[in-house]
């Protein structure tokens, strides 16, 4: 038994090193495979999406089974984001509690959704059928355009007093038994969950599977759009109140930098991985001019701070980044992972070369509707074109393979091992 455990640990360390080498654009034995798997292990292990969100034990078993059977270099099992704004509100009160609360929904599943009654998410087995993926949307803006100044003047008090009651149904009236009880309940569940999380990380070490990411650095524009204003309305604000949007981004930059560093530190200590997940969404919608005005300066500042603190920003450049590739060259060499989604990987490789590690893969549609042969061909082509002499990680778009055919995912794994050899 102890021998098995040791070999699990050896495997774990070997994978950490393989990913580190790829990050430094050094040649390794083969291209690593690291994927944001979220829903797929649940489907593979035969549990419902409802169980995945609400039965942490079953989900933990499903993820470890998947990790053992597929033996990928890293996977990620973060789930949702309902408690992020509540956590953000507590940043000035106590950073460590703020982080715990913000990450509770990310790591702990659907329970914070039930306790807080947030208006962000529709959950499987709650608002949705038990096997529908959770969906995150803001229907009406939580912060109105005429409230920008209030937010800027006193951000945390404004969030706590005005915005939190709008977001969370159970915190609608903060001095009510319902709200006080809900917060106490959230705290006690959080206390129960923390040891379970450490146990899960240990189990993942036993099966030799590091996290693709377990730390998070959000950026100002995306955070403000996705959690506080709403996604498309903020895009109009860029034209209507550009200076105020910039002031908000300036205000949020140091706070979110600290979130990245704090979660990075926790993750590094618990898992040995230096990667900090930096999701980037608005980039796909913005022209280079707008991106450089409203998004990149703040994002870049956070990235540079993370690098200075010894972390590896994992830039999840969602949607298309084709028009913005040059920005990657402005970052210190071999210090980040540029994870592409719909961006043309060949073009990205042409522009970035061996300057930074690139992560990318094949279209999820092929895994859903294609054949095993087609999957194999696509993986082979990608490897031939971009694996180069190192500095490539095979991955898939964020949370995209819930509906993939199991046999196609197996064919993909086999092809990565075969054609990813150096």
């Amino acid at each position, binding site marked *: 038994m102890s021998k098995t455990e040791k070999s699990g640990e050896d495997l774990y360390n070997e994978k950490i090193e393989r990913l580190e080498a790829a990050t430094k654009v050094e040649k390794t034995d083969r291209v690593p495979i690291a994927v944001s798997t979220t829903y797929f292990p649940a489907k593979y292990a035969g549990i419902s999406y409802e169980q995945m969100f609400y039965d942490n034990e079953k989900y933990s078993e499903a993820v470890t089974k998947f990790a053992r059977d597929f033996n990928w270099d890293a996977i990620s099992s973060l789930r949702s984001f309902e408690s992020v704004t509540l956590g953000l509100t507590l940043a000035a009160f106590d950073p460590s509690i703020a982080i715990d609360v913000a990450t509770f929904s990310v790591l702990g599943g659907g329970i914070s959704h039930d306790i807080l009654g947030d208006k962000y998410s529709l959950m499987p087995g709650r608002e949705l059928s038990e096997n529908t993926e959770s969906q995150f*949307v803001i229907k009406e803006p939580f912060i109105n355009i005429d409230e920008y100044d209030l937010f800027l003047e006193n951000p945390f008090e404004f969030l706590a007093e005005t915005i939190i009651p709008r977001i969370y149904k159970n915190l609608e009236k903060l001095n009510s038994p319902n709200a006080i009880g809900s917060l106490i309940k959230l705290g006690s569940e959080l206390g129960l969950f923390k040891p379970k999380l450490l146990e899960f990380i240990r189990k993942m070490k036993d099966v030799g599977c590091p996290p693709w990411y377990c730390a998070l650095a959000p950026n100002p524009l995306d955070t403000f759009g996705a959690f506080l204003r709403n996604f*498309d309305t903020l895009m109009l604000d860029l034209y209507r109140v550009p200076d105020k949007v910039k002031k908000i981004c300036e205000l949020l930059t140091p706070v979110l930098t600290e979130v990245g560093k704090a979660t990075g530190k926790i993750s590094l200590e618990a898992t040995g991985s230096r990667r900090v997940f930096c999701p980037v969404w608005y980039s796909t*919608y*913005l022209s280079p001019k707008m991106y450089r005005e409203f998004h990149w300066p703040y994002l870049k500042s956070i990235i540079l701070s993370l690098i200075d603190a010894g972390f590896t920003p994992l830039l999840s450049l969602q949607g298309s980044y084709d028009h913005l590739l040059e920005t990657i060259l402005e970052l210190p060499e071999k210090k980040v992972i540029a994870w592409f989604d719909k961006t043309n990987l060949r073009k990205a490789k042409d522009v970035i070369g061996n300057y930074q590690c690139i992560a990318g893969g094949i279209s999820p*549609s092929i895994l859903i509707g294609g054949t095993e042969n087609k999957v194999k061909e696509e993986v082979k082509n990608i490897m031939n074109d971009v694996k180069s002499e190192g500095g490539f990680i095979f991955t898939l778009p964020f949370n995209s393979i*819930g509906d993939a055919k199991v046999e196609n995912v197996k064919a993909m794994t086999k092809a990565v091992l075969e054609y990813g050899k150096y």
Partner: protein
Amino acid sequence: MNKLDELADTLANLDEEKAIAITKESLESGVDPMKILDMCRKGIVIVGDRFEKEEYFLSEMIMAAEIFKQVMNLVKPKLKKITEKPLGKIVIGTVQGDVHDIGKNIVISLLEASGFEVHDIGIDAPPEKFLSSIKEFKPEIVGMSCLLTLSIKSMKRTVEAIEKSNLRDNLKIIIGGGRVDKDACDYVKADAYSDSAPKGVEICKKWVGGV
């Protein structure tokens, strides 16, 4: 050049306040509302050209569509009756299982700005909703939108339902959204796909002979 002539460029340059002011002034001075509408459409065409040239991206399209919508709201009550025939009819919805509608709403604004009659059947629309709307509105085109990967299967089920109901002939189907690509299009058996709203609208225009 009178003020109205500036409206197309004003809209194309995303000057919201000026576009609204010109519209109001023109209406007050008795300009034919159809002329205002025509100028706005010209503006949208310029915006489309700039998108093609990659000067504009989606945020500019959203802003342009927003200005167009506001101008339309001012102009519409003054139009006695829209006598012109629409460029084409389209039924559009986000497929069952998906509640995202940002992409769909942008496409709708641009379709309307291009002269289409659009029937929006909302989000999380089951195949039956598509079927009943096709029967009711008799569109040339059906648009299916999604954000999530899981919706690709939902799109396939919807297309199959349309086939089974013998409504597929003479109907063009376009799928759109963040996760669609050629492989998704082949799998779903749609006629076209687009992950960009303006490109999707161009395809629709070609189908009804509008380009």
